[in-house]
């Protein structure tokens, strides 16, 4: 069976790429620490020696639109072009081409449908920065095939938090049962408290630092019960109007089976808090690369 060698759950900050490219004399004061934390986080993936990446993200009204909006969608294509004109324009993100892994895409679609998740699919998907930000941060060589999984955290009506957790648990079961010798890493990106296009946007911190502190603790401890007891579709409006992206973190907590994270880090930035978590279901890899 396939091995899940690492599970990574992180924020996706579209300004990281541009910030990390700036020469020191032009970089903002927080850049050096940000780059250092991302480099440390990248190592948590590198040492797991993955063969392919399952990537959980959310389209930001790029290819998916209100005339035809899936709740959960799996890409099944040999390649994925990536990033859009407005991401180039606003964030300075370059365009990318990622390889796909159609065999695992097909497997997840079939197994997911059979488990009661009516997954949509796409044979021609241009992924956006929710998928490419973690490529830039934790796999900048972009050398591994991917299976993209999109969730709707953006266009109500949304699935409830419990459904995100259930899909995470189901993906874990599916990948664990996939008849393959490959080493799979699952990388999901979401948000902590976030406000976009509202009165609380772009403050000196995320719009709700108290929520962020609780959220980081839920994720680090794998406290799904505590998280689910407090988080609802309604409650997520209070920390910030784009905080429903936290449900992608909840999906990843489900995928980690509510385990305590093996690696947890965060960085308080303007506008939002960055957060980085890694789980090793197959055991923490030693520095040499072999599983302990």
């Amino acid at each position, binding site marked *: 069976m396939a091995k899940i060698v690492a599970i990574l759950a992180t924020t996706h900050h579209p300004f990281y790429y541009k910030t990390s490219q700036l020469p020191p004399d032009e970089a903002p004061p927080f850049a050096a620490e940000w780059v250092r934390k991302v480099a440390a986080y990248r190592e948590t993936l590198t040492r797991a020696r993955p063969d392919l990446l399952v990537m959980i993200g959310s389209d930001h009204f790029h290819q998916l639109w209100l*005339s035809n909006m899936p709740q959960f969608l799996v890409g099944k294509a040999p390649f994925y072009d990536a990033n859009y004109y407005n991401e180039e324009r606003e964030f300075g993100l370059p365009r990318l081409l990622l390889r796909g892994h159609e065999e695992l895409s097909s497997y997840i679609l079939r197994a997911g449908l059979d488990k009661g998740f009516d997954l949509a699919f796409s044979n021609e998907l241009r992924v956006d920065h929710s998928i490419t930000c973690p490529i830039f941060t934790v796999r900048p060589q972009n050398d591994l095939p991917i299976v993209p999984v999109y969730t709707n955290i953006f*266009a109500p009506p949304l699935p409830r938090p419990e459904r995100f957790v259930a899909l995470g648990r189901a993906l874990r079961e599916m990948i664990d049962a996939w008849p393959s010798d490959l080493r799979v890493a699952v990388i999901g990106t979401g948000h902590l408290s976030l406000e976009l296009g509202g009165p609380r946007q772009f403050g000196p911190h995320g719009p709700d630092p108290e929520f962020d502190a609780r959220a980081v603790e839920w994720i680090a401890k794998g406290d799904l019960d505590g998280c689910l007891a407090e988080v609802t579709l309604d409650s997520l409006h209070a920390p910030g109007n784009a905080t429903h992206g936290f449900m992608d973190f909840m999906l990843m907590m489900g995928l980690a089976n509510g385990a305590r994270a093996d690696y947890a880090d965060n960085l308080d930035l303007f506008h939002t808090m960055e957060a980085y978590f890694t789980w090793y279901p197959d055991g923490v890899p030693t520095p040499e690369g072999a599983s302990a």
Partner: protein
Amino acid sequence: MSKYLVNKFLFTVDRDPDLVERYRSDPAGTVAWWEAECANEILGCPGLEKSTWLSFSGEERRALAEHDHVALFGLGAHPFLTLTLWIAMFERDHTEPLAMQLDYGARLAHYSLPYPDIST
């Protein structure tokens, strides 16, 4: 109320560099042209297969034609779409980093929770 159509306008303009410039320089003319020519195009369908029923309400048309992002927020336009397009059009008019985004938010300061419903 046709929140969907307001969002469709913001979405289709934001993804087209020429339309971004056209809307910045001639908002009323762009809105009138778009409503007449583009509002009923079904994205993803051939141009021949149009819808027949989509139009803006008077307040939506006014808010778009006057670049009134505060009114659009109140009408329940998707805040991500409005913000993204506004950054494309107006960030260049500010010299300090994030000045445009902070001004944009400050103009919405009279809104408190719950914000206007963005469901379509």
